[in-house]
């Protein structure tokens, strides 16, 4: 019979070993199938997501109220007598501006939705970049739960956001286009060169790069980058602009750094492209070579 102190030590060692084995098992599973979510994961997410969503809404309200308060304090310092009137007007103006901005945002989203020939769903962003080491955002669908699946493109009127990585009920994790694990087929309209857009590994900001662009198709800083229409993304959707060109003397490719058009830090509503883009009409290109047969020519 072992003494109780010894038994206690063995028990602790067993627990710690089991904890390490569990963590390693999770890591191995993640490496094999990153999209997999167990019933336990789904259960936890179902419990946590409403709380996360409410906290996000609360944070926005607090931020808005704090902004109004700061404005009021400034007005009071200028003129005590005019404080109430001025404050009310400023608050109304802020509210109106916010409403107008929201309206413009929704109109643009609606415009994009009408421009995209495929079926889309609107979703709200409830969290983004919780960990600075993974470029992931979380969205919540207002309706259409069950229609989304892994790999579906996420877009906004400003451009490409990324793809769905994991789905749990009405909540999905988006792999942003600036994550190194993301790969999007893009084209440079000026040169016609094509490449794969990937997030830049090791970048702290929102940067990505184009790989596999042939050396012959010389790109330059400021060139527009749009989607090619392959991989589920609507064609000609803006992606960003070339911010840096690095020439690869040995190989055939150019390394192009891209500044995305989308401000990921301020994402609020996005569109999920739930149906694949219809194939281009081969005859249309024969008659009108420069006009896309479908997609978003208006955003070019």
């Amino acid at each position, binding site marked *: 019979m072992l003494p109780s102190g010894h038994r206690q030590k063995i028990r602790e060692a067993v*627990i710690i070993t089991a904890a*390490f084995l569990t963590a390693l098992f*999770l890591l191995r599973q993640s490496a094999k199938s990153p999209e997999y979510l167990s019933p336990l994961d789904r259960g936890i997410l179902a419990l946590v997501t409403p*709380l996360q969503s409410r906290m996000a809404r609360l944070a926005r309200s607090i931020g808005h109220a704090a902004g109004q308060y700061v404005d009021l304090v400034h007005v009071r310092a200028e003129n005590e007598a005019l404080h109430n009137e001025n404050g009310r007007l400023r608050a109304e103006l802020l509210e109106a501006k916010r409403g107008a901005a929201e309206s413009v945002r929704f109109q643009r989203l609606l415009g994009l939705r009408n421009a995209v020939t495929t079926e889309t769903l609107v979703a709200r962003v409830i969290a983004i970049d*919780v*960990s600075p080491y993974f470029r*992931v955002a979380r969205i919540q669908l207002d309706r259409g739960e069950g229609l989304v699946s892994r790999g579906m493109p996420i877009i906004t009127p400003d451009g490409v956001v990324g793809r769905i990585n994991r789905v749990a009920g009405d909540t999905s994790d988006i792999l942003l286009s600036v994550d190194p694990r993301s790969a999007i087929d893009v084209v440079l309209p000026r040169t016609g060169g094509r490449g794969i857009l990937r997030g830049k*590994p090791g970048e*702290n900001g929102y940067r990505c790069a184009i790989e596999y662009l042939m050396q012959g198709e010389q790109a330059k800083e400021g060139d527009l980058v749009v989607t090619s229409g392959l991989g589920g993304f609507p064609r000609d959707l803006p992606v960003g602009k070339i911010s840096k060109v690095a020439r690869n003397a040995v190989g055939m490719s150019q390394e192009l750094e891209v500044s995305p058009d989308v401000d990921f830090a301020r994402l609020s509503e996005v569109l999920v492209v739930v149906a694949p883009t219809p194939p281009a009409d081969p005859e249309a290109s024969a008659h009108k070579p420069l006009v896309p047969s479908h997609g978003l020519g208006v955003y070019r």
Partner: protein
Amino acid sequence: MRSVATLIVGLLLLLLQSTVMEFAPVHLVTPTLGLLTVLYIGLSPLKWAPGSAALVGLSLGYLFDLVSGAPRGVHAFVFLVMALFARALASRLAVRGVVLKASAAFVASLLSALLIVVVRAQVSPETGYGGLRMAPIEALLTAVFGPPVLWLLSRLDGRLDPALLRVGLSRRRARALGSGLPPR
């Protein structure tokens, strides 16, 4: 009971980190509040057995993986290691006072950032080993939030101390007994 309460507080801190901090005017980095919970557990060797600390670290990391959308297991592994690191630190150094607590939070945040990058590179090799440039700022923010969060957790832990709960003593009562003069 205490582990569950600590997990709930840790989860709330993770949610706070994932939402409120993200909507702050400056969107750069956020303090790793979840890590502070793990740090607290590791730094309280008299209250938390190593096994319990490891389990809470693993669970909180797993929750963080789910909340943040990171590959499952990355934070679970890192938080587990950090719980044991804090435990080892506490056995060699009495982490008392604001400065030492802030320093411990700073070092833990830097170390966890390094570990996350290494583990991430193993799970998704395409992400590489970069991304550590903001780690010192993140660690600095964590150090600023460290002492108040650790203090809050210690208050909560004091109220849920199993030794006191077992004999039906609240924290206030226990303190009065403990700090009183010896009986005449």
